């Protein structure tokens, strides 16, 4: 079974530029998550989708971050414009459903460096 795919794996941009990340979850997984993991910290949930609807985006900085999950499968996360403090690994995860104690399967992440 293929895992969660993410691209690109690495991205270096200058501040105020835009960047987009792509995620393809495990086939059949209804729930998709985007996390931000800053060096030395645990992952922080940015947004959670159930199919193509947003369940939780309370920690998404909506003035610069946006995410969509068209057709309830692939998802993209965009940052515009980027700031230095956005340097982090962006992890995508999926689960079969959003219920309690469900296993989340993580992709390898995209490491973003903002100069």
């Amino acid at each position, binding site marked *: 079974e293929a895992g969660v795919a993410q691209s690109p794996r690495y991205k270096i941009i200058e501040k105020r530029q835009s960047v987009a990340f792509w995620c393809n979850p495990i086939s059949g997984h209804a729930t998709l998550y985007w996390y931000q993991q800053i060096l030395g910290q645990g992952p922080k949930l940015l947004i*959670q989708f159930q199919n193509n609807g947003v369940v939780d985006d309370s920690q998404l900085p909506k003035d610069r971050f946006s995410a969509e999950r068209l057709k309830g499968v692939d998802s993209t996360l965009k940052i515009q414009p980027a700031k230095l403090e956005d340097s982090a690994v962006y992890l995508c995860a999926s689960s079969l459903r959003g219920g*309690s104690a469900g296993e989340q399967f993580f*992709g390898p992440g995209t490491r973003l460096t903002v100069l």
Partner: protein
Amino acid sequence: TQLLEQSPQFLSIQEGENLTVYCNSSSVFSSLQWYRQEPGEGPVLLVTVVTGGEVKKLKRLTFQFGDARKDSSLHITAAQPGDTGLYLCAGDSGGYNKLIFGAGTRLAVHP
């Protein structure tokens, strides 16, 4: 704001030693998960505990969920170099699988 505090932050031991890492909070969680993350990869689930006082064993790893469902521990017996990694605990407070992660314990096991 719900927080999970993990200790120690770093642990460097020799192969064959035993160790325990802790995950503490003032909040109650409906379930708690432990993940291991290796460099350049995403976290991988090790175990989920849901009942206060629950103990689960996974080969040389023993996980315990506190009676009040506010804390957890991970004990590794006879650590091996393959156990090296970042151990993360994550709590689900709302029952919708919205996870709050601790900062992790970075373990290095030397041959």
